[in-house]
């Protein structure tokens, strides 16, 4: 056998990632929004909650009557729109990331248990999944939020308890197939505990699928937060959230359309970027078998 070095799969995956346009674009936008959210107080030119009724409804700087100090104009209470957009990213990301992680923990745990152990445990897991799927998610969220009142923590809790179904279904199916694999049996005969097998043998093989679901769920959570806040059942004013901003601008839709399309565009861009990122991760991370 010659001594030709084999390509390192990790490096090959990195090379594929760098060549994947969608993945890079998605990653860039998500990274930019994360930076904006984290450093919001440093970046935002004004206090997002500071009202100035003498400076109401200033159009963006490039329009007639614009003020360079308020780059994207002001809203009906004279608050700087750019600052509110930047701070609004915090709510979207906080909800998106927290719900992604929490619902992921719930769903993946159920999926691992049902898929790996099968039998009665799987019956129970399937039952819970079916119950969850029979509930219209956003409607239940609406009802619960109107009962409990809106706040960031309530919102994250409610959405996490509702959005784990896709994780559970995907994980369960993937684990069910892996359970049959001979390498799991080999570990079993070598004396491995179920916990060891789930962590060392099964988990690494399910991670790519879970990661892709995670990006979908994050986008979904961000949209839900915007919808609930728009309906007045989510984040409460004056905390800036993109959903609230659209809701508050409703009455100026025709006179000042930028008040609606700017936060709308922000939501659209972030959700699109997250989906691109997820698709890219899927393309890049499942090369086993094909090279």
């Amino acid at each position, binding site marked *: *056998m010659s*001594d030709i*070095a*084999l*390509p*390192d*799969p990790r490096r090959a995956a990195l090379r594929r990632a760098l060549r994947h346009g969608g993945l890079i674009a998605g990653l860039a936008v998500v990274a930019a929004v994360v930076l904006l959210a984290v450093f919001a107080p440093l970046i935002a030119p004004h206090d997002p909650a500071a009202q100035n009724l003498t400076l109401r409804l200033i159009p963006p700087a490039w329009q007639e009557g614009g003020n360079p100090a308020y780059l994207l104009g002001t809203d009906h209470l004279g608050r700087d729109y750019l600052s509110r957009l930047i701070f609004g990213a915090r709510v979207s990301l906080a909800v998106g990331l927290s719900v992604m992680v929490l619902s992921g923990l719930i769903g993946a745990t159920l999926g691992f248990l049902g898929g790996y152990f099968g039998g009665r445990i799987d019956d129970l897991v399937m039952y819970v999944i079916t119950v969850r799927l029979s509930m219209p998610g956003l409607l239940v969220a609406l009802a619960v939020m109107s009962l409990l009142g809106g706040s960031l923590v309530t919102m994250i809790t409610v959405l996490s308890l509702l959005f784990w179904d896709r994780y559970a279904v995907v994980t369960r199916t993937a684990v069910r197939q892996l359970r049959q*694999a*001979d*390498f799991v*049996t*080999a*570990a*079993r*005969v*070598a*004396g*491995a505990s179920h916990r*060891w097998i789930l962590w*060392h*043998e099964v988990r*690494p*093989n399910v991670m790519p699928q879970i990661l892709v679901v995670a990006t979908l769920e994050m986008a979904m959570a961000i949209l839900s937060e915007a919808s609930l806040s728009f309906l007045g059942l989510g984040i409460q004013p004056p905390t800036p959230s993109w959903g609230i901003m659209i809701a508050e601008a409703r009455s100026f839709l025709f006179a000042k359309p930028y008040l609606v399309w700017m936060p709308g565009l922000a939501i659209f861009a972030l959700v699109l970027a997250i989906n691109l990122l997820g698709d890219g991760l899927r393309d890049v991370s499942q*090369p*086993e*078998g094909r*090279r």
Partner: protein
Amino acid sequence: MNPLLEVRNANLSFPTRRGLFGRGTAVPVLRDVSLRLETGQVLGIVGESGSGKSTLARLVLRLLKADSGAVLIDGQDHRDLSPRAFAAAVQPVFQDPYSSLNPKRTLAQILEMPLVLAGDFVAEERRTRVRAMLDRVGLPQRLLHSYPAQLSGGQRQRVAIARALMVRPRLLICDEPTSALDVSVQAQILQLFDELRRDFGLTCLFISHNLAVIERIADRVGVMYRGQIVEDGEGRTFFAGPQHAYSRLLLSSTLPPIPGRPLPDVARPWDAN
């Protein structure tokens, strides 16, 4: 002296799927199977698909439970052994080298796993042993940190064998370890088995439907048919003159590469009931 492996009157049946109220029937897969395997011997088990060969292997590996009867390892019921003690005594090699190696772990991780689970080796010792075993099964050291996807079928099967041997088990259960490989690679793997047998003093339960493979490797041959061992004897005697009608059919069913030879007659008069 106790044989290393003894199966005593093992019966095993799989239940058919039950409805909510109906009671399923049981399909017998092993029927009163008994066998003895002495230390250092290779017992070949042959039989057609569905005859219960793999079920027998899974029973010995404690992956299935017998309805009645017992499996004894060195005189001890294998159900009484701790997972560690059992792992140290018995290890499997599976048929499909594409399913038997975790695609997400490097060879180093795969080969280290049995030692980590055995628990009495420090990291340094584990690495030394992994490198030595890689040499022993004829794989270059440069593959140490590669993934199974980068290996050929034959190389993968070498890894699977190496993993089984890491803890120096006394008994190897090989369930069709060459059937997924093409003929030239089969020969290499059998060669490796021969060498390892000599070096490690392996005792082996070797399951195959390939009679040529069995003839090459086994000291004794057991023929399974419909969940029973219908013939059990010395390899040489068996291939010279099989006793049971099914054994004769099995032997005549192989297709040696002789041009112009007609297909064998595979009627089974003894099954007429």
